[in-house]
C-alpha cells in the first residue's frame, strides 16, 4: 500500500489526466446512450412486437466481450479505428441495452388506469408522455442509466487497449510490467469511481421514486450540474493532452513501451511535439492504426511483420527478411527504418532449476521432456504461423494436454511459480534474469529473425524530416544487452520508463 500512495504522488499529474479521460469517456458515452436509448425505449414500449427483438439485439451486443468489440470496430471507417472516438462508440453500444430495457419496463409498468385517466382528461399522446408517463417511468430509467454508467466505468478501462486513455492505461501497463502496484494504481480509482457513480445515481433514483416532485427535480438538477461539471473538468484536463504533430504508438508489453518512449523522446529532442498512444492491444491493432493514420510510427519486428502482418511464408535470412518486409511496407505507404540493433526472437524458456537438474540447453532437450510437461503460451504465439503448431512439429513435441493460453507477461510468472513448465517469451525480456529462467537454444533454427525496427507512415516522414532524422539516429544503437537491461530496469527494478529512456538517450 505505501508503494501505491507513493506511485500516485509521483504520477499525480498523469493520474489526474487518466482519471479525467476516464470520467469524460464514461460521462460522454452515458449521456449519448441516454439520448439514443430513451427515445428508442419510448418508441418500442408502444410497439410490443418491436420491443422483444430490439431487446434481443441489445442483449446480443451486450454479450460481445468489449475487447472483441474494439477488434470488430478496428477496420470500420469513421466510427472505428484507434482512439477515444472508437472507444466512445463501443461504450455507447454497451450503454444502450440497460437504458432501453428499463425505459420499456418503466413505461409498460405504469398502471393502465392512470394512463386512461390521462387520455380521458384530454391529453394528446405527447402530453401524456411528458406529464404522466415519463415522470412515472423516470426512476426506472435512472436505474438503467445507473447500470449503464457503472458498466461503462468498467468497460472504459479496456478502452486503453485501443489508445483511448483512461485508468486502464495503468492496468495494462501494470499487467505488462507484472507490477501489482501499477495495476492497483489504475484499478483502485476505477473501482472507487464505479462506487461513486453507482451511489450517486442510486441516491437520485431514490429521490425520484419518493414522488416528491419539487425535491426530486432539485435532485435531478443537482446531479445534472455535477455530471456536466465533471465532464467539463475532465475534458479540460484531457484537452491538455491533445495536440502533437507525431503520434507514437506501441504494443502492450514492456519492451514496446520502452521503445515507444524512446522514439517519442528522440523525436521530441528534435523539437517536434509528440503524442503518445502507447500500450495498444497487439500487432493487428498497431498495424491498423498505422495504416489509418491513428498513429504515425511504432516499432515492429521483421519476422512478425513478414508472417503476421503480410502473411508470407517464414524465411530464415535476416537481411532477406528485412528487405522483403521493407518492400511490402513501402507498397502500403509505410517506411521501415533500418533495424534498431537487436533481434527479439521467441525464447523458449524453462525454469533455471529444471535446466540445471535435467541438463537442458536446447529445445531438443525440452522436447524429450514434453510428454510430462505443461506448456503456457501467449495468445499470439498460439495463433501465429511461426508459433506453437510449427514449433511442435519441428521439434516433435508431445504435451499430454493442449497448452494453456494466457497473457504473455503473466506466462513468465506462471512458469516461475511452477504452474507451467515451458513458455515462449521474448529473448530480450528483463524477467528472464529477474525470475531465474533459462532460454533454450533453437538448435533446429525454427524461429525466423525478429529484428526490431521502427515503421512509420511515409507521409509523416516526408512532412517532418526531423522525425526521420530522430528515428535514423536510433538505428543500430539498441544492442540486445541494452534492451534487456532496460526491460530489466522496468520489470524487475520497477523504474520509471520515461527516466530509463532519457538516460539511454543521454549516453
Amino acid at each position: 500500500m505505501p508503494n501505491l500512495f507513493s506511485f500516485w504522488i509521483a504520477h499525480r499529474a498523469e493520474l489526474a489526466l487518466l482519471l479525467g479521460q476516464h470520467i469524460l469517456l464514461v460521462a460522454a458515452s452515458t449521456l449519448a446512450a441516454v439520448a439514443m436509448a430513451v427515445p428508442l425505449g419510448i418508441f418500442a414500449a408502444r410497439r410490443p412486437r418491436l420491443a422483444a427483438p430490439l431487446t434481443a439485439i441489445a442483449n446480443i451486443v451486450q454479450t460481445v466481450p468489449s475487447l472483441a468489440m474494439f477488434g470488430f470496430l478496428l477496420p470500420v471507417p469513421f466510427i472505428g479505428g484507434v482512439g477515444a472516438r472508437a472507444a466512445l462508440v463501443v461504450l455507447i453500444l454497451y450503454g444502450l441495452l440497460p437504458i432501453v430495457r428499463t425505459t420499456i419496463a418503466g413505461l409498460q409498468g405504469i398502471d393502465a388506469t392512470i394512463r386512461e385517466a390521462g387520455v380521458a382528461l384530454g391529453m394528446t399522446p405527447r402530453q401524456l408522455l411528458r406529464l404522466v408517463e415519463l415522470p412515472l417511468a423516470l426512476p426506472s430509467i435512472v436505474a438503467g442509466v445507473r447500470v449503464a454508467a457503472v458498466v461503462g466505468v468498467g468497460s472504459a478501462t479496456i478502452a486503453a487497449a485501443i489508445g483511448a486513455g483512461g485508468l486502464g492505461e495503468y492496468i495494462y501497463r501494470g499487467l505488462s510490467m507484472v507490477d501489482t502496484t501499477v495495476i492497483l494504481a489504475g484499478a483502485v480509482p476505477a473501482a472507487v469511481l464505479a462506487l461513486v457513480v453507482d451511489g450517486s445515481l442510486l441516491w437520485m433514483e431514490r429521490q425520484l421514486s419518493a414522488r416528491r416532485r419539487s425535491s426530486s427535480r432539485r435532485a435531478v438538477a443537482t446531479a445534472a450540474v455535477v455530471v456536466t461539471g465533471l465532464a467539463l473538468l475532465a475534458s479540460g484536463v484531457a484537452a491538455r493532452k491533445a495536440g502533437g504533430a507525431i503520434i507514437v504508438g506501441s504494443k502492450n508489453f514492456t519492451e514496446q513501451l520502452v521503445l515507444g518512449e524512446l522514439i517519442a523522446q528522440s523525436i521530441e529532442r528534435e523539437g517536434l511535439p509528440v503524442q503518445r498512444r502507447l500500450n495498444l492491444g497487439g500487432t493487428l491493432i498497431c498495424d491498423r492504426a498505422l495504416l489509418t493514420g491513428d498513429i504515425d510510427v511504432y516499432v515492429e519486428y521483421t519476422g512478425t511483420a513478414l508472417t503476421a502482418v503480410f502473411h508470407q511464408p517464414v524465411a530464415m535470412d535476416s537481411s532477406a527478411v528485412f528487405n522483403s518486409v521493407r518492400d511490402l511496407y513501402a507498397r502500403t505507404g509505410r517506411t521501415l527504418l533500418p533495424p534498431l540493433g537487436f533481434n527479439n526472437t521467441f525464447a523458449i524458456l524453462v525454469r533455471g532449476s529444471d535446466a540445471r537438474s535435467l541438463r537442458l540447453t536446447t529445445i531438443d532437450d525440452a522436447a524429450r521432456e514434453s510428454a510430462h510437461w505443461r506448456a503456457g503460451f501467449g495468445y499470439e504465439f498460439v495463433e501465429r504461423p511461426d508459433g506453437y503448431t510449427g514449433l511442435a512439429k519441428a521439434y516433435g513435441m508431445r504435451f499430454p494436454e493442449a497448452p494453456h493460453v494466457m497473457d504473455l507477461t503473466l506466462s513468465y510468472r506462471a512458469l516461475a511459480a511452477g504452474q507451467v513448465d515451458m513458455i515462449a517469451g521474448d529473448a530480450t525480456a528483463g524477467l528472464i534474469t529477474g525470475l531465474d529462467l533459462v532460454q533454450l537454444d533453437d538448435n533446429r533454427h525454427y524461429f525466423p529473425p525478429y529484428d526490431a525496427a521502427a515503421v512509420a507512415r511515409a507521409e509523416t516522414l516526408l512532412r517532418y524530416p526531423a522525425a526521420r532524422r530522430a528515428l535514423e539516429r536510433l538505428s543500430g544503437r539498441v544492442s540486445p544487452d541494452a534492451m534487456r537491461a532496460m526491460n530489466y530496469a522496468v520489470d524487475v527494478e520497477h523504474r520509471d520508463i520515461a527516466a530509463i529512456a532519457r538516460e539511454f538517450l543521454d549516453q
Partner: protein
Amino acid sequence: MSTSTFSIEFRDVSLTRPNGARALDHFSLGVESGEVLALVGRSGAGKTTVIKLVNRLLAADKGAVLVEGRDTREWDPIALRRRVGYVLQDIGLFPHMTVADNVAVVPGLERWAADRTAVRVQELLELVGLPPRQFAARWPDELSGGQRQRVGVARALAANPPVLLMDEPFGALDPMTRAELRAEFRRIQQKLRKTVIIVTHDMGEAFALGDRVGVIDAGRLVACDTPVAMAASVDPRVRQLLDAVVARA
C-alpha cells in the same frame, strides 16, 4: 350532421369487443341537459362501454353517439374529452402530483393563466369538501379512499365541462363514506346542473342519485324510467336488481 335535442344521445349503437363478444346491441338512449342518468346492470352488461363511447375512448361499430348534437366521430377527440369530465372507478389520480396539481391538470392543458388556475383549484377543493389549506399540498397516497374520490371529482370538473361521466365512482368505498359522498354529490349537482351519466351495479345507488334510471342487460337497454316508475316494474331483469337491494336492506 344530425340534430339532437339531447345533451347526449345514443342512436341504435352496436359494438363488438375485440374478442368477438357483443358489448352493445342496438342501444338507444337520450340524456337531457342537466339530467342525472343512472345506468344499472350487472358486471359485463356493457355499462362502462356506454360511458367510454361518450368521450370516444371507444367508437361505435354501428349507429351514432352524439354529444351536444354532434357525432363524436366528428369531434376532435381531444376537444371532446376536455368538455366531458370523467371520474373513473379506480380514480386514477396521478401519483407523482399533489392534490392541487391533479386538479389543475385540465386547466393546464387548456393553458389557463396560473392565477386563474389557482383560484379555480381553491374553489373546486372547497366544493368537494376538501379545505385547500389542508389538502392542496398533499399527495394521493396520503389520502383516504373517499378523499381520493373527491379529488377525482374535482379534477373532472376543473375546466367546467357541461358533461360528467362517472364509472362506479363510489364502488370501492365503505358504506358510510358512500352514503356521505352520495349526499355530497346531490348537493354539488344541485348547484352545477351538469349532464351526468353515472354507472353503477347497485340499484339502491341508482335510485338515490338518478333523475332517471336505465337498466342495461347483455348490451341492451331493457328499461329506462324515473325511480318511482322503475320500482313498480314487473320486468324480471329489473326485479332481479331490485330484489338485490331489498335482500340487502
